[in-house]
């Protein structure tokens, strides 16, 4: 058995420069950075656009090439893995076996912290993996620096703590307590009491949107903007109580697992779920997303684990074929009730929060080996952190950018069938409008202009105007087919109409 953990040494085999160019690996990486094919420019009639796009494509190619080279030469650390000899199974390898093989720094990450008094612990890591927050069910909140294993702050809130979550950095964290959830600063000062959400079961922070999402005991999903404290959305899921909630890191969609075995996905700008999936026959016990957002793993109370491809919304059939098989196993002490399992970012470490404290085990290959200090820097200085905070705030995304496919932002609006109102609905709307017009109080004018006849005339006019906004039924039934271009032209202001493209 061999263990290779984050091989940080440079590749020993260096190709001569002319061979580098035709490196297949490099090409594959380049393709990845090109993000898909360019458009077919031959079809374009506009020569100017054609050449400009061609030059742009060239730049893209250059950028991709540079990025691929950077990835190859400047990010040499590759993810670790477990390698076994012959028939040996990777999941038979125990933590003690691993400890013998790995370096001292890594072996330091295998430990158990025994805190028997304050019940099962919830864990949360900052994006850089530097800090960990542990929340004991019986009110113990601890903020730990994982690099030095220093306890930064420990507070006892003397209340049930159901969940904990870091906000955008280690300076703030939120805790879902018995009645309300609270936001604390790093030094344990209570900053806010979030009363509007009610008793919260799960808390998650959407770091690109600065939204604190929570689901409470009666199955309401709340999104609160932590920058200015406004409640962006509160949605009644209508699926009952749940304490399974995860955020898709790719697009910020929140997924909830329900007792009926369904998983629903939500965004703050719509009251209806984006997607509902029937995943399990029994209640969903937990959920997890792949960082690239394409895969989702669910587990049900019927002791089954399923992996879903979120691009097709189909189950990945890797369970039997061996793409997804058991990799490692770690047996806990009997009687430990596991509350939360979470990988530490940028480390091959799995944190396990349980009823007797928390443990940390090594899972080779679980962490991204090359951290990007612009994304999340574990060795951040105070100044860098502040700078980062400002940048994060400047780059904050509005809540409506949460959608299933965020790459579609900026593209053409998907053509949609126009939802035509039914006749009854139109009638009802018309009636309402007419009533509103009738109810309008007319201003009292000067003596000559306030005649009853004039007033009635004016009123009639108002009603007529209100009616006019609703087209006649016959006309609408005739169905004037307007072309797409005309549609677009109709939306433009009058002065720009002439510039609308004729299709």
């Amino acid at each position: 058995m061999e263990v290779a953990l984050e091989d940080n040494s440079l590749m020993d085999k260096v190709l001569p420069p002319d061979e580098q160019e035709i490196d297949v690996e490099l090409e594959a990486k380049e393709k990845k950075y090109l993000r898909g094919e360019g458009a077919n420019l031959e079809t374009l009639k506009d020569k100017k656009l054609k050449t400009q796009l061609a030059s742009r494509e060239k730049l893209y190619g250059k950028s991709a090439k540079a990025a691929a080279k950077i990835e190859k030469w400047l990010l040499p650390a590759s993810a670790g893995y477990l390698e076994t000899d012959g028939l040996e199974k990777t999941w038979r390898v125990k933590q003690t076996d691993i400890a013998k093989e790995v370096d001292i720094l890594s072996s330091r990450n295998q430990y158990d912290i025994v805190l028997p008094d304050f019940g099962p612990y919830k864990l949360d890591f900052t994006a850089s993996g530097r800090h960990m927050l542990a929340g004991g069910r019986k009110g113990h909140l601890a903020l730990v620096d994982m690099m030095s294993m220093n306890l930064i702050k420990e507070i006892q809130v003397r209340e049930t703590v159901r969940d904990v979550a870091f906000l955008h950095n280690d300076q703030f964290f939120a805790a879902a307590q018995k009645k309300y959830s609270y936001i604390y600063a790093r030094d344990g000062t209570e900053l806010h009491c979030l009363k509007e959400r009610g008793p919260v079961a799960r808390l998650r922070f959407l770091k690109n949107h600065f939204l604190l999402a929570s689901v409470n005991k009666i199955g309401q999903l709340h999104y609160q903007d932590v920058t200015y404290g406004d409640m962006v959305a509160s949605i009644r899921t209508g699926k009952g109580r749940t304490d399974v909630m995860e955020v898709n890191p790719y697009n910020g969609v929140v997924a909830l697992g329900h007792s009926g075995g369904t998983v629903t996905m939500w965004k703050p700008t719509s009251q209806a779920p984006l997607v509902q999936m029937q995943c399990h026959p029994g209640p969903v016990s937990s959920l997890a997303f792949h960082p690239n957002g394409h895969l989702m793993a669910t587990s049900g109370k019927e002791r089954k684990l399923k992996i879903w491809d979120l691009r097709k919304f189909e189950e990945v059939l890797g369970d039997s074929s061996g793409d997804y098989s058991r990799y490692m196993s770690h047996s806990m002490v009997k009687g430990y009730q596991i509350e939360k399992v979470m990988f530490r970012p940028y480390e091959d470490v799995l944190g396990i929060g349980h009823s007797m404290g928390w443990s940390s085990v090594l899972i080779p290959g679980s962490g991204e080996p090359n951290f990007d200090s612009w994304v999340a820097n574990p060795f951040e200085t105070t100044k860098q952190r502040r700078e980062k905070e400002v940048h994060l705030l400047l780059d904050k995304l509005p809540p409506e950018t949460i959608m299933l496919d965020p790459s579609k932002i900026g593209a053409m609006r998907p053509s949609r069938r126009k939802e035509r109102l039914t006749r009854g609905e139109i009638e009802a709307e018309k009636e309402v409008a007419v009533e509103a017009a009738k109810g309008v109080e007319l201003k009292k004018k000067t003596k000559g202009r306030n005649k009853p006849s004039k007033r009635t005339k004016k009123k009639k006019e108002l009603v007529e105007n209100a009616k006019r906004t609703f087209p006649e039924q016959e006309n609408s039934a005739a169905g004037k087919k307007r072309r797409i271009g005309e549609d677009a032209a109709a939306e433009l202001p009058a002065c720009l109409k002439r510039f609308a493209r004729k299709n």
Partner: protein
Amino acid sequence: MGSLKRKSSWSSKTLAKSKKRKGPHLPNSILKMIATHKRPLNSDDNEIDSDVDLYEYEEGIPEEESRKNNRYDRIDNYEFKLPDDFEDEDVESEDDEDGLNSEYDGDDDRHARMLQVLTGMPSAAFNSENKSKPLLFTEPYPEGEFNPTRDVLSGKNILTEEDFLAPLEEYHKTSKQISRMRKDTYNSLVHPPLPKPDRERLERKTARGLVDEEFSKWVHLVKRNREAPTVYFSQEVVNLGKSTVGAIASEFQPRTEFEMRMASVLNDNEVSEAHREDGARLLELNQASSLSMEDHIKDYNHIAKMRSLLFNHERKSKQIKKIKSKLYHRLKNKGLRNSALGALMDPEMAKEEAMKQEARRVEERMTFKHKNRGKWAKRMVRRGLNVKYNGTGEAITEQLQINAELSRKINSLRDGSSSDEEELSDGSDQDTPYKLLAKAKEKTLRALEDDEVCNSGLMSLPFMVRAMKKKNEEANEEAKRAVEEYEEWENSGGAVKPKKTISVSGRRVFGATEAPKESKKDSDNFYDNNSDSDIDDNDLEGVRDTASPARRNTGTTTETEVTRDEGGEDSESEAEQMVDGIFEVPSQAELINRAFAGDDVVGEFEKEKQEVLNQEVPEPEKPVLLPGWGQPWPTNKRGYHQIKTTRKEEDAQRKREEALKTRKDFRLKHVIISEKVDKKAEKLHTTTPPFPFTSKEVFEHSMRMPIGPEFNPSTVVGDLNRPEVVKKTGVIIKPVKFEEVNPNEEVDDEHPRNHQKPRLDKKTSRRQSKVK
């Protein structure tokens, strides 16, 4: 004279020709001459002349105009029609002749008149010379074979044989000359100008050719500029002069007298020093020249005095700040006490604070200071003054409040302390098992001893007595057993830990639990964990209820089964091996299936999906018709009315089906993907592709790459984000200059050239036409 006339007539003819093309501007004198002159016998000329005359006659030019025309230089008029040299010569000569002609004309007239006066005969009689000349006739048709000239007809100018033969004699001699002359004439021959439209077309054509040629030079340049991603204006460094006020000021030189004086003062060392150090000195400096020594001393003293006064005043005010009223201090102390903020910060301070608080409480308990038992309060109450005056009433209630607060705190403190004690004792039990055991033993023994049963009321009934007895017996037995156990433990030296601690773990234990009471006691401490979990269960149950009634029945069984599985979870195969011949244990999967069979989750989901589909793609409306209404008498066999589905309805139905088919979740049974339009997110999309783009695909492909610095290496970010036009503020942008451009050159964005935007427009084209 005759020869002269001929010449003039010829010139007039040519002139007329040109006139004809050019317009009606013919000198008056020539017109006259044309009218009066006899034509030369040259047939060619004659023909043309006649033509001209016809035209000119119709023209009818006003005299003033023609006269006015005379004032202008004629050369201008003819510049386009004839070669320059020819024109000039002709016009000059013509001019001369014009003058002569008019003179001659005038002479002739006078002579005729004189003769008439002298002789008394008509003037026609003297006009013998004129008579011999042929009259001017205008021919309506061009001369030809069938239309011979007048001369020929009248037989005057008939050709003879000699005429034909004469040249032949000299033929050999002159043939050479002739050919040369012919050549000359051919060369010098002036063809008649083309009709105007043709001429203009030609003109345009040639002009266009020239312009095109000129412009085609620019094409590459224009193309390059047009297709360049960025156009750079004024690449060369241009000195824009001073950029800052400081830069301007640094080079300032005093010139005028006033400026000189200012500069001398400003640069004075003494002044600047004074300015830096003391404002007063600056004043002194200003007045130094005018003040005497005495005044100076006086001033100095005055300033010193003022300074000391100021200092004293400051000191006093500082002192005053420190002095505060009694009331202030009282309020301040109260505030501090109430806030007890300091207490939180510092443990020592907290201790002190707690001591003080305790002292206050004790005092309150001993003195009843705030119970309004004082003389004053009693008096007030007795007299009812507290009702009468607001202030006193308030004061009394406040006192009472303070008392209540203090006493309540005492109570709560007592409670807390007692519970603390209990907890402490519990805690200490663990430390000293002996003590705990002793205590437990004592308690059980005591319980054994007092067997008092109240013998009244319900308890006196015989069956109740019996039941109680039974219970008591059981309890006694249990107690005895417990005592025995305690003794055993005591004997073993407390090595065995008390059972209580075992049940701390969170593992669920099912079946008969040994000490349910104890576990409950455990969770009964100050965390309300228990109640919370209760709520959880209730809620879950509620959900289940709403989900399916069938589920409730199976609920308990499933749980036990699951837990049993958990019990044997380490090895599934083991569990299966334990199959006895009599009792067959179903497989794990089957068990699970059975466990979750109760609720029809899938069916419910399908129902939900149908609902969502109906909502998002609504079913077409049914006609609001009752059978039989608005329809003719039944025609079908059965004689019943049937509501036929109209074509419209069928269409609607088909449309709906198509719409359903296009949905993403059409083939996925287990998924509902909402296709509701998010209005807020609509602003993130465009309805039409932006300007240069015409197709959606190209636009979206061009948008696929992010161009920001977060996603691109810094070597490319600049190129990706460079603006379309790069220029410096304040630099004049000059019009584009011609330069040779290699048409096959690739646009290189890395090495930007100084090329300017094409200014190919009217200006240049106009220039081109002018050159032409």
